Each structure stands twice: as C-alpha cells, then as structure tokens.
C-alpha cells in the first residue's frame, strides 16, 4: 500500500523527531520501545511517538519504509537513526546528543 508509505513519509518530514514504537511514550508496551522513550525523555527532546500497534498496515509499513525489520525506529529530521540497540549505544557514546545538536534539535530545557 503506497498510502501508508506516503503517510509515514509525511510524519517523518513534518516532525523533527519521530519515534515509531509499540504503545505510547506515556505507556510503552514493549521493553525496547520503553528504553528509547527513557533516553529521549532523559535528554529532554521533544518528539512525536507513533504507536504502530494501532494499525496493522502501519506496523508492516514502517518496516518496509526503511527496510528495517524491527520496532522501535527513531527518525531525526527525516533521517533514520536506528533501533533500540543503536540508539542506546549512541546515547552511551554521547553520539546521540551530537546528532541532535548537529541537526539543530533542542535538548534539555524543553517547555513540555
């Protein structure tokens, strides 16, 4: 279905930071998704969480979108950053913080 691909592309392009996950940032329904939520919250990054469990087409579509077979998936400024393991490794190596800085995404003192 190209419709879902267009929808994903639009989400990724119109939001600076998007996390495709199982559950919601407030209530993750998978440990791997929960880990990425914790990291993003710790860094104080504003992001949009998209719950793939709400839609079977989306759940498959996001895997096809980046040819990445697992969820969660983090996108920053339209670019695929990685899944849970990569995000955690990057965070521990201070590389994730660098990605946000380089791409002009505010961390720390966010309003909400």
């Amino acid at each position, binding site marked *: 279905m190209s419709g879902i691909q267009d929808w994903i592309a639009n989400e990724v392009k119109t939001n600076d930071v998007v996390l495709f996950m199982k559950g919601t940032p407030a209530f993750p329904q998978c440990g*791997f998704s929960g880990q990425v939520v914790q990291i993003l919250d710790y860094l104080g990054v504003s992001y949009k969480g998209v719950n793939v469990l709400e839609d079977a087409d989306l759940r498959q579509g996001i895997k096809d979108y980046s*040819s990445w*077979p*697992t969820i969660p998936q983090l996108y920053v400024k339209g670019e*695929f950053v990685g899944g849970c393991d990569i995000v955690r490794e990057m965070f521990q190596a201070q590389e994730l913080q660098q990605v946000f800085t380089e791409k002009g995404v505010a961390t720390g003192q966010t309003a909400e």
Partner: protein
Amino acid sequence: MTTKATIEEKLTRAFSPTELGVIDESDRHAGHSGWKEGGETHFRIEVVSKAFAGKSRVEAHRMVNEVLAEELNNGVHALAIKTRAE
C-alpha cells in the same frame, strides 16, 4: 535444528566471526506479546567480525538483519543486536 542453532550457523557462514554469542532470552519475556511456549522468540546476539570494519551501526545491523530475514519473519519476535569489527 533449533532456531538458535540456525542463527548461529547463518551468522558464522555470513561473517566468519571471531566472537559470536547467541542467547535465547525468551524466558525473560514470558507472557509478553510475541512470546510463545517453548521459547526461541527473543534473542540477543553479539557478533565480532572484520566484515563490520568501516560500517556504520545502521549498516552493520542491516547486514545482520538481512542474514536473519527468514527467522525474523518466522517466529523470532525480538532481536537485540550488538556488532563490533574487533
């Protein structure tokens, strides 16, 4: 052949790793979505191979995911990956 053994064999063939760890963590996810009686649904793997030299994390993980595409489509619900070049 168990899924664990299949994963080990495929990774060995694809990357000739100097270190390889394949751990079935399914027990730790009992009752969670994707879990099945008998395990073999959640794996953690660590691969050390020269094949990953000069690759980004995303590239290295893609290489692993491609090798295990069949398993990911058939019963393996979660795959935690760690790759290193040396």
